[in-house]
């Protein structure tokens, strides 16, 4: 399967670049966080903010950081940004923080952000990195909140949708739909 994940193209829009579907790199936080539309959206937006700022800062700093230290350096930077987002979240959206606060620090473990820093931001100008962060962040937010909305709607009727396993099943269903759609387009 060919995709534009590693070449850094951000031209295909959220559906194509939604990392959860294409790369599966952002799978981990999906499970716990996509319990409802609001929590999915909140974590999506938090990830978007971290992704954009980390991409811009990485674009500015990468040239001066030795390549072997790049990944640990990016991780430190991302952890700092996540800490800041966590504090801002806690201060300004306290009601929501009550529900999702536990998961905000886990954004650090989202491979998507390091992957974008390494693949794109480190080699492009800051505006290109920002654009990339916006596109990927928006795709991720769309996926998290969409999954949350579907799980919220299904939960009263279908218990499994409320459980963490429900996120896996729904993600699998989304992947299957996407594959079917791609397949249908290739072979008439």
């Amino acid at each position, binding site marked *: 399967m060919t995709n534009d994940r590693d070449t850094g193209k951000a031209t295909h829009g959220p559906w194509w670049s939604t990392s959860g579907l294409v790369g599966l790199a952002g799978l981990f936080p999906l499970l716990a966080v996509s319990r409802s539309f609001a929590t999915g959206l909140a974590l999506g937006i938090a990830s978007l903010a971290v992704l954009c700022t980390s991409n811009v*800062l990485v674009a500015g700093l990468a040239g001066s950081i*030795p390549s072997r230290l790049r990944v640990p350096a990016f991780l430190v930077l991302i952890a700092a940004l996540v800490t*800041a987002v966590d504090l*801002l979240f*806690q201060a300004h959206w306290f009601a929501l923080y009550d529900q999702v606060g536990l998961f905000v620090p886990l954004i650090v473990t989202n491979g998507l952000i390091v992957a974008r820093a390494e693949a794109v931001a480190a080699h492009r100008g800051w505006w290109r990195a920002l654009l990339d962060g916006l596109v990927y962040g928006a795709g991720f937010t769309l996926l998290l909140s969409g999954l949350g909305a579907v799980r919220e709607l299904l939960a009263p009727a279908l218990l499994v949708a409320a459980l963490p396993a429900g996120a896996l099943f729904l993600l699998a269903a989304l992947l299957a739909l996407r594959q079917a759609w791609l397949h249908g387009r290739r072979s008439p």
Partner: protein
Amino acid sequence: MSTLGAGQPPILPEPGRARAVAGLAALLLVVVLVVGGAWRNTRHVIADHADRGVLTEIAAVLPAGLYDNSPARDLVQLDTGGGQPVPVHRARRNGRPVAAAVTVVTPDGYAGPIRLLVGISTDGRVLGVRVQAHTETPGIGAAVAADDSPVLAGLVGRSLADPPEARWTVRNDGGEFDAIAGATVSSRAVIGGVRRAVQYFTTHKDEIFALPTAVAGQ
């Protein structure tokens, strides 16, 4: 480069060293500015939230009008030998002890520990119970923590004499309390936690009220 193939390459090649040091220093500066800035701008708001949170929680388990002090600030941290200190908020009226809001963590939830805040009067009656933190299954065990939870409501007004201690559990175990259907384990854990809180408080209330306040109002 002339050193190519001559054993281990240096960690940082000489010409890039100054630049690398500058880059890492810049990174460190960014990290300090980001975290420090966010902390400076949010710490007061966050502390306010925490204070307000404690006030709401206490108001949920201690009836207003019962006390005239500020239980949120009249706090002691007890060492009950369980590792974690147990926070107890003391309510007084005209300086005399009337009740306390005791935090208990019960380890035997279905999916992990459940943290409860239990309001207990000095005569040993449960005034109110709130689940502060839990990881019970959404839609099943989590129902014990709901605001309209029948398990929590069923505990209000009870004491160690009513029912007798042996019957302080769910009906399935020969007790007096209704469990939530499908959530017997969670219900049992909550009821057991409240019982232990009442037992602890009634045994130790004199010492608890004699202790100096742990948080001087800052």
